[in-house]
């Protein structure tokens, strides 16, 4: 089997097996067909994270295909996590996209239901939703074990590392940990959560997750994001369904005023404080940064919160040695801990 040349240093699953907290980051998908835009964003974050998420038409707004952006990232030496949503594809398209991604060396797939198109730029488009995120996880698992959904054999079986999301901040709160359990049972190998502002609610969610023993079965990354202004905080609270921004955070952003450096500084400070508080919660494998069109903030947050992803600790090592280092990480299984 021919493999494309891949400059990957540490792949996501290897990072999960290594000691330090794993850090992933979501970048804005390419708007238009300009590869330089994606590459610029990738370069801003690549030395601070283990893997980079590429969204799939987030919020129902059309962007460059996630697999294409994933390839651009891979060329930059970043292990991509490709988002795959059920909004725009039926089960046949999902299977062919999963195989295509695997053929190109994109193996980390975040399986999502997808934001509904009513809030996007094509509200009149036909919603597909042939499968839901859980069924998509099951589908990825079937493919990974060498079968199509039809039962036909795939040789060799595609190398996939499917992940899932969970939102601890949306009702029904009691059901969220159980839904996470369902996702793990369906085949999720890693979990990234919605952005955390309400740490208490996240702690309660994690307590239940630990009771169910899920933190022992899959690495869980807590979502965090820096706010850029009080307006952004209010927008998230009021307009983004499933997002919880507590009043005191909005107030802190308001008190920072309208001057850009001050409000951005406050946003980063809140984000770093959130990371520090999340560190006290047992059962987390790391953090997932969602800088929402503000990739420049990632290096600052990473430095201040002393995030040392497995990959960053190898950045100074010459390229030839890196493969060995990656192997060393591979062969040194350790409990994942934040």
């Amino acid at each position, binding site marked *: 089997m021919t493999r494309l040349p891949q400059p990957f240093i540490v792949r996501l699953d290897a990072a999960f097996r290594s000691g330090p907290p794993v850090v992933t980051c979501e970048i804005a998908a390419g708007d238009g067909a300009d590869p330089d835009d994606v590459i610029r964003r990738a370069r801003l974050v690549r030395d601070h994270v283990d893997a980079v998420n590429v969204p799939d038409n987030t919020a129902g707004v059309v962007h460059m295909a996630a697999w294409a952006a994933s390839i651009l990232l891979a060329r930059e030496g970043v292990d991509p996590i490709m988002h795959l949503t059920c909004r725009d594809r039926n089960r046949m398209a999902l299977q062919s996209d999963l195989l295509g991604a695997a053929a190109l060396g994109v193996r980390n797939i975040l399986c999502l239901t997808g934001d509904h198109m*009513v809030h996007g730029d094509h509200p009149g488009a036909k919603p597909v939703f042939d499968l839901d995120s*859980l*069924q998509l996880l099951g589908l990825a698992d079937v493919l990974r074990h060498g079968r199509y959904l039809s039962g036909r054999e795939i040789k060799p079986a595609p190398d996939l590392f499917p992940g899932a999301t969970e939102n601890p901040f949306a*009702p*029904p709160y009691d059901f969220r940990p159980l*839904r996470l359990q369902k996702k793990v049972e369906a085949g999720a190998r890693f979990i990234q959560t919605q952005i955390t502002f309400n740490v208490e609610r996240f702690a309660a969610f994690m307590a239940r997750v630990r009771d169910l023993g899920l933190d022992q079965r899959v690495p869980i990354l807590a979502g965090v994001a820096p706010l850029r202004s009080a307006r952004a905080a209010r927008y998230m609270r009021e307009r983004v*369904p499933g997002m919880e921004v507590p009043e005191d955070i909005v107030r802190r952003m308001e008190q920072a005023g309208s001057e850009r450096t001050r409000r951005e500084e406050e946003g980063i400070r809140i984000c770093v404080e959130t990371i520090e508080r999340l560190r006290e919660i047992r059962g987390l494998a790391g953090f997932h940064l969602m800088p929402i069109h503000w990739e420049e903030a990632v290096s600052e947050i990473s430095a201040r919160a002393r995030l040392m992803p497995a990959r960053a600790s190898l950045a100074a090592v010459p390229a030839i040695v890196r493969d060995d280092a990656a192997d060393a990480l591979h062969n040194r299984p350790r409990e994942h801990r934040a």
Partner: protein
Amino acid sequence: MSISVPAPVRGFFLRHPGLSRALEIVILPFETAGKKLAFGCKMCGQCILHETGMTCPMGCPKTLRNGPCGGVRMNGHCEVVPEMMCVWVKAERRSRWLPWRGAILKIQPGLDWSLSGRSAWINVLSGHHESEAP
């Protein structure tokens, strides 16, 4: 809990497709009217009402059959239809009253769209409702 029909019954209906079709023609109008009225049925043909707290999951704009999406509003309403209570918030609440409350944790396979519009009752009797999809 899942509905289990004795194998001989299933076999009988599978062996006599003409008979099940005739029975369906008779039953379908009543089934459709009754379920539409009581549950807002969308006639997917693979009823899982009893496993989702007697709440039809096909009322969800994303037709989610395995639980709520991440976009449920703080007040428990749907992100797509703000005036509607999330189907899964209702399903979760109602399922607690059922003796088989654990059924909501079952992973539901993808829908077989070729059964949509057909009688779920006949599909249960002939074993069609349990598809092989993930």
